[in-house]
Every structure is written in C-alpha cells, then in structure tokens.
C-alpha cells in the first residue's frame, strides 16, 4: 500500500459520507414540516453535495485513471461504498432525522477540526471549509434536539426514540482499521478513537439539557469500512444511480 493509494481510499470514505447524506437529506426536499425547515435541511444537503464533489474530485485525481467525480459517485457497486452505516439510515420522522444530524454533526465537527491539521494539503483545505458548514449543521441539530426533547410529551418521546434507535450505529464512527492507522502514522488521517470521549460528553450535554437520556450501551453495528452495509444503501443507490445506469454519459 502506497501513501497515495491509502489516501485515495481514505478520501473515498470521507466523500461517500458526504455524498450519501446529501442524497438522504435531499429526499426531504418539499417534505419539511414547515417551509423554512424544508430549506434548512436542503441547505445542509447542498453543503454535503459540495463537500462530496470536492472530496471525490480529489479521489479521482489520486486514482489517476482519468475518472471524474461523477464517475466515482455514480458508477460504483454497493460494496465499494464506504459511508458510515449511520448515514444511510432512513430519515424516519423529523426527530429521527434530527437525531442522525446531531450524532453526525458533533462527530464531524470534532473530526474536521483534527483533519484541518492533516499533512495532506488538499484534505486540510477541504477540512477548513467544511468546519464552517458543520458548525452550522451542529447548531441546527442541537437547537432542534432541545426544542423537541424539552417540548411536548409527543415530541419528547419521538426524540428519545430517535436517539435510541440510532445509537447502535454510532460506535462505527470511531473505529480505526489498518488504513486509518497507516495514514495516522503519516500525519494524514485523524485518530478517531481519540474523539470518542469528547463526542460522548458533548452529545450527553445536549441530551441532558433536552431532558433526554443517553442511550444504554448496546451491540454496535459495524461494516462500512469493509463495504458491508445495511439494506438501506442498496435502495439509495438504485435511485441515485438510476439515470447514469439507464442513460450512461447522459448530458443536460
């Protein structure tokens, strides 16, 4: 494994997280609870798609086979996607969507703050831009968690169910495999395992203020680093890749 190959794979993982979440959130377009919230979530989706574009473009460069970011985004098989399992989980009700956003954006804020120090200049530059966006995503998710958790009995129960249901997908965020370790030694990757305590205390602080409880530790789902996904990713890809599959090289 060369540094370049490793960085390619690492960048694909980051890019897939942004790409798949961008798609998931775009499913909510025109379905927000109110018009303002509809725009807020699609705004987050657009940030994600912008980030995916930057990362997958860099991955294509590293790969050096003349592919574009679109080839990488739309023409891979499911097993070659490496987004976190948390990200491909369905939007569910609004509280579910917010719980997913909360877990993820607190993680991403910590993650990209570290990635900004990466020795890989492109990843560091993408990280600096991403932090500004993620800060806003995190604020949005925290505010809604507080409103729903500390709102009515109905909203409280739904928010608690959201954080409970998704808890088993959070362990994976901090996993490190051989690729992470290899790039960590070269000061390119982030030591995610070191972010866990901070993440948990941040999430717990928000949940407590929202009168919610931190879910009990349970069996944690895993697999995305090996390309093993929940059933949800296949459904996402069949919709997302439909146009490219049905009309290869279609142009506007």
């Amino acid at each position, binding site marked *: 494994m060369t540094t370049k190959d490793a960085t390619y794979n690492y960048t694909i993982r980051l890019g897939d997280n942004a790409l798949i979440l961008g798609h998931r959130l775009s499913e909510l377009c025109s379905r927000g609870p*109110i*018009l*303002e*919230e509809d*725009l*807020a979530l699609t*705004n987050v989706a657009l940030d994600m798609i912008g980030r995916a574009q930057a990362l997958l473009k860099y991955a294509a460069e590293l790969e050096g086979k003349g592919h574009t970011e679109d080839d990488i985004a739309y023409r891979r098989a499911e097993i070659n996607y490496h987004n976190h399992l948390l990200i491909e989980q369905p939007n569910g009700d609004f509280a579910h969507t917010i719980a997913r956003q909360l877990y993820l954006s607190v993680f991403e804020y910590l993650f990209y703050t570290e990635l900004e120090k990466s020795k890989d200049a492109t990843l560091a530059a993408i990280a600096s831009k991403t932090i500004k966006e993620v800060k806003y995503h995190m*604020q*949005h998710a925290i*505010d809604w968690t507080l*409103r729903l958790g500390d709102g009515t009995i109905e909203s409280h129960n739904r928010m608690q169910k959201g954080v409970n249901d998704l808890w088993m997908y959070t362990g994976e965020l901090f996993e490190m495999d051989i690729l992470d370790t290899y790039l960590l030694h070269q000061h390119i990757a982030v030591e995610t395992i070191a972010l866990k305590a901070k993440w948990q205390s941040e999430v717990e602080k928000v949940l407590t203020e929202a009168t919610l409880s931190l879910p009990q530790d349970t069996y944690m789902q895993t697999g995305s680093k090996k390309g093993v996904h929940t059933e949800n990713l296949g459904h996402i890809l069949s919709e997302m890749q439909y146009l490219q599959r049905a009309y290869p090289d279609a142009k506007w």
Partner: protein
Amino acid sequence: MIMATDTQLDLWEVFIQSKSGLPYIHSGSVHASDVKMAMQNARDIYTRRGEGTSIWVVPAKHISASNPDDNDMLFDPSNDKIYRHPTFYVMPEGAKNI
C-alpha cells in the same frame, strides 16, 4: 390582538445588510418559534447566495405600520417641494453610498 392563527409558528420580519455600512433592507418574513430559529431560518432563506453580511429579525407583531387611509396626510405634502431634496450640494469626490 392575534389576527389569525395557523400551524406555522410566529411571523418575523427579516432585514438584510448586504455590505457593512449600508442600511438594512427588508427582505421578507419567516416563521419561527424563537429568535434563534428566526435567525437560522432567515439565514437559510435569504442569504443562501451571498446576499448579506448581517441579519436583523424582528417579531412582526412589534412593527407598527402607517394606515393607508392616512396616505394623503402623510405623503402628499412632500410631492411638490423640490427644495426639500439636497440636490444643490456637490458630492464629495470618493464618497459612495450617500
């Protein structure tokens, strides 16, 4: 007095400043349950394409509007008094946005 109730939360008016030093201009309104949400919604709806550098949000119920029936009294008297316009001054060179 509450004019109408709906399920869309309270109404807030949004004012955007496009550049430091320029006046805040009314851009439209948003629905929100508190000032934080109003600010975020205003940001998401009215500054997505670089329109502004600063936002004011004001609860719509706190804005007093002039009564259209008073338009004759309020605005007509200024129509025919050209000397009220400061058009007799020379603009200082380099001064923008006066």
